[in-house]
């Protein structure tokens, strides 16, 4: 962990440095280089931030990523179209459904497959369930980084409920491989919808409890308000999407403004940050947007349960994906950590020619230096937690 470079302590100032010193500028670079990560409790996996610190004040940040690079794009070129799906889910392993959905929609668009209403509704349902599960981890680890342990465990209970539901549906708890090209792997088991409804009623009091325990806790607000303010300009320059973009007060949600998979049929309100406790776009806004998004997802889940149409979920699964039409397609969906864009190029064979995954977290990491300079180390920890990165998605 410790950096081998020595702290540079010059014996005496040279004349030009003396000049600077007399003007009140510190000429020595009397600063410490600090390696935060790759294995650091607050970097959510294996992110390395090289910091230059002046006391506790961070004056320079250089992020290094790639410690979890698993060559998704290379692997995707060497396996067939359906075989890519398990790999997509390993990008953002906290939201496998959302990852797979993006890829599957891309292939379906390429192959011109129209899925029926039941498939769309079920996809929305599982994606929203997974979004809640993902936000639970995001918020929980955020609280953990700020020093509050207990909310993490409470939120993991919620997540556990969701994972149980998804396990019953798909057979796995995290890497579902449930959404398939042209349909779904299984139809729902009997009584599953009722269990989802039960979960909704279970979930309802959890969010006020979280708000009491954490969101409006004075210490928590003090730690997050006015910290790591991301302006809309910065967000757009860095291609920030999803909850981080909405937290800056930018009212854009793909699910409402560019609906896919039938999201236009649901009534929900994208949540935007308003600077309630501080400045718009600060850490607290990024936090509360996620909390409120869970409530909105719950609304969507209820509606999806109510409108669950009849149909065959395997109806449109193509018999063979040997021959794909040539062409290219770019599909984005609203994943919990920003838009996941899949740029898929097909050369007509059974394997993709090129798959590029544009992940929200990648852009968020890139924006860390822009929003956290001049803060304290503790602020940096809060910021890294607030942009909610999953290194699997960053490095792919």
């Amino acid at each position, binding site marked *: 962990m410790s950096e081998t470079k020595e702290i540079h302590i010059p014996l005496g100032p040279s004349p030009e440095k003396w000049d600077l010193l007399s003007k009140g500028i510190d000429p020595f670079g009397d600063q410490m280089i600090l390696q935060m990560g790759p294995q650091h409790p607050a970097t959510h996996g294996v992110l390395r931030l090289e910091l230059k610190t002046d006391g506790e004040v961070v004056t320079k940040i250089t992020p290094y990523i790639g410690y979890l690079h698993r060559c998704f794009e290379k692997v995707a070129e060497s396996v067939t179209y359906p075989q890519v799906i398990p790999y997509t889910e390993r990008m953002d392993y906290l939201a496998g459904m959302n990852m797979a959905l993006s890829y599957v929609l891309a292939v379906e668009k390429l192959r011109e497959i129209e899925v029926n209403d039941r498939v769309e509704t079920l996809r929305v349902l599982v994606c929203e369930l997974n979004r809640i599960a993902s936000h639970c981890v995001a918020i929980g680890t955020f609280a953990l980084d700020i020093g509050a342990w207990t909310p993490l465990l409470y939120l993991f209970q919620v997540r556990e409920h969701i994972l149980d539901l998804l396990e019953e549906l798909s057979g796995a708890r995290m890497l579902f491989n449930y959404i398939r090209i042209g349909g779904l792997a299984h139809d729902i088991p009997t009584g599953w919808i009722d269990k989802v409804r039960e979960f909704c009623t279970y979930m309802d009091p959890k969010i006020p409890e979280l708000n009491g*325990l954490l969101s409006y806790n004075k210490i928590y607000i003090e730690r997050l308000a006015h910290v790591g303010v991301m302006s809309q300009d910065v967000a757009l320059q860095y291609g920030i999407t999803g909850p981080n973009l909405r937290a800056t007060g930018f009212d854009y949600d793909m699910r409402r403004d560019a609906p896919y998979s039938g999201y236009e049929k649901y009534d929900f309100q994208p949540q935007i940050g308003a600077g309630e406790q501080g400045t718009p776009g600060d850490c607290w806004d990024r936090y509360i947007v996620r909390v409120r998004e869970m409530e909105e997802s719950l609304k969507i889940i209820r509606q999806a349960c109510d409108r669950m149409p009849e149909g065959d979920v395997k109806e449109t699964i193509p018999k063979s994906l040997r021959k794909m039409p040539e062409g290219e397609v770019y599909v984005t969906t609203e994943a919990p950590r920003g838009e996941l864009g899949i740029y898929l190029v097909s050369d007509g064979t059974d394997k993709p020619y090129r798959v590029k995954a544009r992940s929200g977290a990648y852009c968020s990491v890139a924006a860390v230096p822009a929003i956290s300079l001049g803060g304290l180390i503790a602020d940096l*920890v809060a910021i890294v937690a607030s942009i909610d990165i999953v290194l699997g998605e960053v490095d792919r």
Partner: protein
Amino acid sequence: MIALEPYLDLIISVVYVVGIVLFLSLFALFATWLERKVAGHIQDRLGPMETGGWHGWLQPIADAIKLLIKEDIIPAAADKKLFKLAPYLVFIGSLAGFAVLPFAANLIGSDLNIGVYYVIAVTSLVVIGILMAGWASNNKWSMYGAMRSAAQMISYEIPVALSLLIPVMMAGTMSMVEIVDNQAGGFWNWYVFRTMPFSLIAFVIYFWASLAEVNRAPFDLPEAESELVAGYFTEYSGIRWAMFFLAEYGDMFVVSAIAATVFLGGWYAPFPFLDIIPGPIWFIGKTAFLVFVQMWLRWTLPRLRVDQLMYVCWKIFLPFSFANLLLVGLWVVLKG
């Protein structure tokens, strides 16, 4: 037969010291178990359940054995002498506080007439050990932890001392035993309730500031695991690490015991008729309750930032303690 008479004091002292060290170790072991149980149940978990049958009560012993037989790693670049010395210094600082804790009227290491003053002085020794550990580790995170710890502990000494002054002023003595004796006869005589609301405020300030003194959440910045990995004991392992751990829990006991002594009536029961239960049980019970509250707080609250920590100390606790002191002083004078 050798005349024991001249050595009796010495023998009693030695026995007492050995007893205190044993008590401290046992308490720290028990406290780690309690901490995990409290954390577990607050988080809807069970905590340790396996070792020893009933609710994993032997878990701390297993942990202690594990720590004892672990490899003691000293970093190559560390300042070896200081590195080895630091944990003992921290431990001694915590242990020395026990000398004046009145477990009962006659169960006290030494009834100094400046008992309160002694405790404040001696618990400050810990900061030297921590600073030493952070420096000697030659690790930047440790260094940060040590610096934070030094800043925090020295700042919080002041509200702690000012709050302790209030019962001292009311009792007119610094001797622990006398302070407790002044609170005899039911909980309404305890100093925490004597001059409502001033002494209550003093008690609250003391309790919170003492959390910072012992580096407990929400003031656990020196060992903030999400920021500084493990703060000043990042590089420690095995028995030396256990020393820090022991000292932390010992400190928790000491500060809680002082609160119990000067504010909560020490070894006296809340109602006079309950005084048939021996004093040490009341004393340890009150202390353990305060330790529990410390744990409860830890598993509830997020951590403050360095500047906010200083803000709380200098801008909230300090003015309130001063005002408190002034008003209580006035009260004492008026009462005559």
